[in-house]
């Protein structure tokens, strides 16, 4: 498994000042694999996936993405950010740009693509997330679910090999969760490598190849959905599942 891993974390440690946020986190994710990360609030899930594209810097251990090790080297960070797309809990669309401009900005400036070419591709992605008619609106004019689908399309326009999702549905009204999960499920079906922090256990069961459970900055256990849900190894996991599956 480690041989063809596209994301590899080896004994990663991370501190916020004196607060120890990640403790010896090791995980290896293969190409095309879908990993769902869950765990109680404050357990370091966001911190871990934000280390993968270096929105946060780790202090000890190694993170290797597609053969490139993440260090202070700006060039390496740039290369990795082109390969890795990210979707945030709060969408983080650019409010002063139209939907189409949100999608085309990075391909034009970072990849140097021609405007007409990327606009065509952007429209294709907007069709895939089922909002081509909103292309010329501003983000503030869309619903939360629509905004999050724009955010997914924006990340896809950079043609990433890996997609990171940090609780993409937790800021959404319940009736909009499904439209976003549907898009993500479709993406998973196309073979994208995905790391997804979410508490949508239905989605996890259906899509994930493996589920990672974190608590207090460490990975407590990981395994296939079947193992994880039917036969959790640690008491901590059972407790968490008990709480989350109650609703």
């Amino acid at each position, binding site marked *: 498994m480690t041989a063809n891993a596209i994301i590899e974390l080896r004994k990663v440690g991370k501190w916020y000042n004196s607060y120890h946020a990640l403790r010896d986190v090791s995980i290896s994710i293969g190409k095309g694999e879908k990993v769902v990360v869950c765990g109680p609030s404050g357990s370091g899930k966001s911190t871990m996936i934000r280390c993968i*594209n270096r*929105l946060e810097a780790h202090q000890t251990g190694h993170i290797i993405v597609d053969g490139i090790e993440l260090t202070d080297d700006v060039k390496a960070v*740039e290369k990795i*950010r*082109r390969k*890795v*797309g*990210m979707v*945030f809990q*709060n969408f*983080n*669309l*650019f*409010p*002063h740009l139209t939907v189409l401009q949100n999608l085309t*900005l*990075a391909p034009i*400036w*970072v990849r140097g693509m021609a405007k007409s070419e990327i606009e065509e591709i952007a429209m294709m992605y907007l069709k895939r997330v089922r909002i081509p008619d909103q292309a010329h609106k*501003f983000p*503030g*004019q869309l619903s939360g679910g629509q905004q999050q689908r724009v955010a997914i399309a*924006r*990340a896809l326009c*950079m043609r990433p090999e890996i997609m990171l999702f940090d609780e993409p549905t937790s800021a959404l009204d319940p009736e909009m969760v499904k439209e976003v999960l549907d898009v993500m499920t479709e993406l998973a079906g196309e073979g994208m490598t995905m790391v997804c922090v979410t508490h949508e256990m239905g989605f996890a069961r259906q899509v994930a190849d493996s589920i990672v459970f974190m608590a207090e900055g460490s990975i407590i256990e990981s395994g296939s959905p079947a193992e994880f849900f039917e036969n959790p190894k640690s008491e901590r996991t059972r407790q968490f599942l008990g709480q989350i599956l109650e609703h």
Partner: protein
Amino acid sequence: MSKHSPADQAPIPTAPVPPAHWAASYEEEPTQASTPPQANGMTALKPFGWAKDNLFNTPLNTALTVACLFLLWLVVPPMANWLLLNASWSGSSEACREAAGACWSVIAVKHRLIFFGTYPYDEQWRPFLACALFVAMLGASGVRAFWRPWLAVAWALTLVGMGVLMWGGVAGLTYVPNDRWGGLPITLMLSVFSIALAFPLSILLALGRQSSLPAIRTFCVGFIEAMRGVPLVSVLFMASVMFPLFLPEGVTVDKLLRALAGMTLFTAAYLAEAVRGGLQAIPKGQYEAADALGLSYWQKTMLIVLPQALRIVIPPIVNQFISAFKDTSLVTIVGLYDLLTAATVATTDPEWRPYFAEVYVFAGLMFWIFCFSMSRYSQWLERLANRYTRR
């Protein structure tokens, strides 16, 4: 809701059929709901109804209204008499002495001196043309349809044209050294150039203040705080008197240029603080989204952060512009003739000396026209900037 039995819902007044004793009022409701009751009253009684509702609705308001009317009656008629009705509009200073009102003939006689200072009298069409060109270009630059690359080309040509007109020395124009310039051209050029140079500088200072490099941060904070800690007058003095002492023997920098540098640095420090306010208002998520997409620092700054930050701070920025425009009148202390100084000089003529008030009213009006235009323009710009980002 689904747990409620029908019996629970019965007393809720939203039930479609009201109880029998409501029937009378229920009939009337639709007509009342279609037009708000105040609107009816307004159209019927306007404008007396409006005055009654807003000016005389309580004893206190009535008293205040009466007091205000009394004050207006005290102030407005004498002012109108002095400014307009009893004013003398043309003729000699003798005619003015007889008139009870303002003496506007002083403006008719002295306006060339007020506008153009000591610029050679026969050549004053040149600064006039230069100012007209400059104001026209400023106006054109405010029009959205003209925000095209050729506007920059037009500006370059305008600046060259203005230089030729003001200095001369080519194309058969006599040479006029810039220590003879004065009045409106000085005020306009000093303010516009210092603002135009200070604005980009202030953005760099504001960005530098947030830099992760300690050397840059310390320099920017030090510069901003040093400039904000001293009055403009002393900055102008330093630029004009002390700065030449640091220059090597034989090198001189023009007085006008030194004043411009002083104004620019001073304005930049204040603007930088306004811009910083905008930068701080941008949510962290915007930076993260830009980083995650692989944008470089300058791409992120120019494409994502500044366009949003500057929109937010249009009002305080324009505030600084207006204040910089008025501050140009302080360059008089380093011996430059701006509009206000030229006006003061105009009052020194013994024949027209008694009418200095009229001259200052006129100079004030000139300042007001420019400042008020800036203020109105900023309101339009704000609406334009917010039109798309708000729902």
